[in-house]
């Protein structure tokens, strides 16, 4: 039985095929209208085929996660399950650093790509520390905070950065207290950082 109103009852075309044919006609007619409208348009006419790539500015989501800010005198810094990371330059690190801290400089001119972040995240996880605390130069923006956020985005949990960075820490620790112990020398804790 033909669909009522298909107007092709006697032409041997099934209703479904007629629907398909009509749909094609709608598409073709619509496309022709689009072409004609562009042809006769005086303003805002666009090229038929774009040759120059469009200047697309799509803000991609930053591969960063949440990192907690802690005070420079926070007890976490002295816990043996904490891995402390210094985000400053090797020269600054050599001049002063928290005992037990590892130096992984954050380069503002060439911030690490995702693969490097993930690699570092794995390295941090392999240290079997339960938490990671990063401190940087304490500037605005702070390199420690940036590193912490990038590592958090790379899959590291229990990550914090020191507010005020190295200057704040140095002010509180003029005599450089010896570390209780370093994470690499201690047995792994039951809670560990997680790499992606």
């Amino acid at each position: 039985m033909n669909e009522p109103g298909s107007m092709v009852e006697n032409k041997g075309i099934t209703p479904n095929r007629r629907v398909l044919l009509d749909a094609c006609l709608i598409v073709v007619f619509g496309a022709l209208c689009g072409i004609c409208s562009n042809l006769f348009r005086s303003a805002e006419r666009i090229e038929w085929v774009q040759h120059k790539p469009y200047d697309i500015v799509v803000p991609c989501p930053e591969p960063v996660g949440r990192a907690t800010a802690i005070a420079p005198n926070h007890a976490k810094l002295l816990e043996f399950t904490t891995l402390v990371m210094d985000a400053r330059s090797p020269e600054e690190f050599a001049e002063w650093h928290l005992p037990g801290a590892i130096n992984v400089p954050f380069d503002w001119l060439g911030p690490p790509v995702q693969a490097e972040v993930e690699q570092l995240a794995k390295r941090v996880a392999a240290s079997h520390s339960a938490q990671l605390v990063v401190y940087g130069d304490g500037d605005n923006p702070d390199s420690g905070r940036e590193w912490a956020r990038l590592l958090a985005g790379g899959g590291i949990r229990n990550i914090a950065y020191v507010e005020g960075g190295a200057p704040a820490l140095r002010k509180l620790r003029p005599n450089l207290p010896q570390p209780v112990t370093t994470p690499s020398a201690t047995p792994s804790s039951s809670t560990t950082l997680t790499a992606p």
Partner: protein
Amino acid sequence: MSAIEQHRIVPVLALAMRLYLGGLFIAACWHKIAHPAAFALDVATYQLLPLSLVNPFALAVPWIELWVGVLLVTGVRVRAAALVTAVLLAMFMVSLGYALAKGLDLSCGCFASQSAAKHDPISYKTMLRDSAWLLLGLFVLFFDKEPIGVEKLFRLRTAS
């Protein structure tokens, strides 16, 4: 005919859906027809089509949307219009899914250009919304076999 198709409420229900979908498509195409360059940029932003197809797509789709909308509202070639609606919505959903999977933070560009729709970012909610519209289109396509509208009116007059 299935039981659903025979139900008296179906043409009325389908009419409501058609008016909603048709109105929606007419509203959606308006800006795109008026500003093809802005819409072409929106299409390019999805980074799905090759550059050579961006402008032809941006020129054709709004007019197809317009005709589909008009046909759905007036009740002419309703099932064909519903089929095109469903295909368009499926296409939009693929684009949205692609953009979401790539993590692109952009506006839908469905009813206004990217620049004018800063507060309408794409999300899974947009996908759900399009899915709901797709279901409406499919309902009309499969169950509205005798649609209320100009075509039916014309046929009744011719018959009498």
